């Protein structure tokens, strides 16, 4: 059997299993996302800030939740041994977790990011916010990919929690750093989307590194013949 062969029905089963296990929390985040969109839709200054804040909270918690529930909790509650006993290879397991995470985090992430950009472009808000917003979403994406990879590779719950919380908390300093870069900060309040070299470079690094670490962990899993 080739290590790249995927046991598709079992992968589907594992994804469906995770979906059923986390449906409740996921529903909670979707509800939070809808409330945030409604707040944005009120077109008031205060509701815009509160709505944006709720959106970021929902995104960050969805990210942490997806990783923690699908990988860390399974280890902690020792249900992982049960899953490993099913007719799956480590690669099947990894792919199932990747797909599950793409659904639980990726879909809300894309909807919220797309929605937020649309709101900026379609409302009187300065369009310069688009670049700033994309860099923030890019940061969340990167933090998520790094945390997910660490959770896949490292078994220690403490390190995982540390990696997840620290990478997400660092969003604040990151936003401050963005504010210190004149070519990015100065364009936020302009009513035009201006892509400067630092902005493009930061976004490119976020995307490339994010996808890179996920690809690396996937390849590492291809090499693993069994779970232990």
């Amino acid at each position, binding site marked *: 059997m080739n290590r790249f062969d995927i046991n598709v029905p079992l992968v589907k089963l594992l994804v469906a299993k995770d979906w059923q296990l986390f*449906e*409740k929390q*996921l*529903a*909670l985040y*979707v*509800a939070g996302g*809808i409330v945030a*969109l*409604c707040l*944005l*839709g*009120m077109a008031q200054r205060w509701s815009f800030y509160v709505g944006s804040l709720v959106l970021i909270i929902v995104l960050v918690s969805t990210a942490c939740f997806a990783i923690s529930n699908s990988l860390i909790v399974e280890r902690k509650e020792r249900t992982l041994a049960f899953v490993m006993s099913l007719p799956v290879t480590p690669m099947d397991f990894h792919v199932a977790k990747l797909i599950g995470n793409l659904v639980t985090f990726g879909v809300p992430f894309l909807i919220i990011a797309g*929605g937020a950009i*649309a*709101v900026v472009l*379609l*409302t009187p808000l300065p369009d310069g916010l688009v670049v700033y917003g994309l860099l923030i979403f890019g940061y969340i994406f990167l933090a998520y990919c790094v945390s997910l990879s660490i959770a896949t590779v490292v078994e220690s719950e403490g390190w995982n929690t540390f990696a997840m919380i620290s990478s997400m908390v660092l969003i604040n300093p990151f936003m401050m750093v963005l504010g210190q870069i004149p070519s990015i900060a100065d364009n936020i309040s302009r009513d035009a989307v201006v892509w400067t070299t630092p902005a493009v470079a930061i976004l490119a690094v976020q995307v490339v590194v994010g996808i890179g670490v996920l690809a690396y962990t996937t390849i590492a899993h291809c090499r693993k013949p069994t779970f232990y």
Partner: protein
Amino acid sequence: MQSNQRLHSMDNLRALAMLAGVFFHAALAYSPIAQAFFPTADRSNSAWVDLPIWFLHLFRMPLFFVVAGFFTALQVQRKGIGGMLRSRWVRVGIPFLLFLPIVHMAISADTLHAARTVAHPSPLLGFIRDLLAMGPLPSMPPGTGHLWFLYYLLLFCVLTWVARALGPGGLMARLAAVPPLWLLVGMPLIVLPSLAAMPVPHPAPESLLPQFWAIGYFGAFFLLGAVIQQHPLLIERMQRHVVWLLPASLVLYATFVWILDGSGRVATLSAGHLFLAFLEATISVWMTVACVALGRMLLERSNRVMRYLAGASYWIYLAHLPVLLAIQYRLMDLPWHWSAKLALSIVATLALCVLAFELLVQRTVLRRLVGTSRHDNSPEGLVGFAPP
């Protein structure tokens, strides 16, 4: 078989609500209140038009949402929550994404054409004409247009999943066990804050972002429909109240009209506005409940014409507005009485939509999205956007 019988009345109600929708939009052109904002507002208009349409406005869409809630719950019961969401995606999500740009472009193009060519433009057309004279039109924030119903339907389907995943079990049963009188008093109070936040008469929630008030207002009716599906006895218990619900709603509406005094303008957040919102909320609930109860009493039979209209109602709902506006733009300069223009625009719109339904929908791939199976009497075949 009881559930199938109930299906007939829900289908018939859907067909009637759809017809009421065509009438409502057609009549806006001849309503003094709508003169300021409706693109085909005609020189010939009458306050008599306002009387029925703003009454209709208060329960036409709520009734649609009751029907939608009913069929959504039915679908969850039959196919599970995943099956419901999948079929809603095909029957509501895809049509929404497909028709939104088409409808938007059709109406925009025709409106721009009318703004340039109509001799007796409406205030809105005149405004567009003035803007055109000054240069290129500023871009408008795109909205959902009259397809907002689909947008909220999708949202409510997602919220149905959220509620089932999070909600306490037995909530529906508890709601259904509420005595009818309590429901008739309580539900207006529940939707009151939503309506109080809006001008009178309330506009359509056409923004691309969801609105709290629309979720609260229409969501309450969607929930009512789902409760009725789960607990059909509820609507039977409502039936004995129909005798007073209708006249009482009419009396409340008379009060509403008297306070509104034809101006259509009462400052929001005033005591008068709150009272008007209260009247709106009460009429909304009472008339919607009365319609559902009357439907159960009178419309349980399957009638060929009504079944056809129910099947075609989704398509007619999607297509009627661009067709209607196209007809009414062409009627604007004619020196006819408003009643003739109204009658002609309704009949022509329905005829063209039915023709298009036969030619463009039932014989093409669109049938899967917005059409109906010809020989299928199952709800899957009969239902349009409210059902699967």
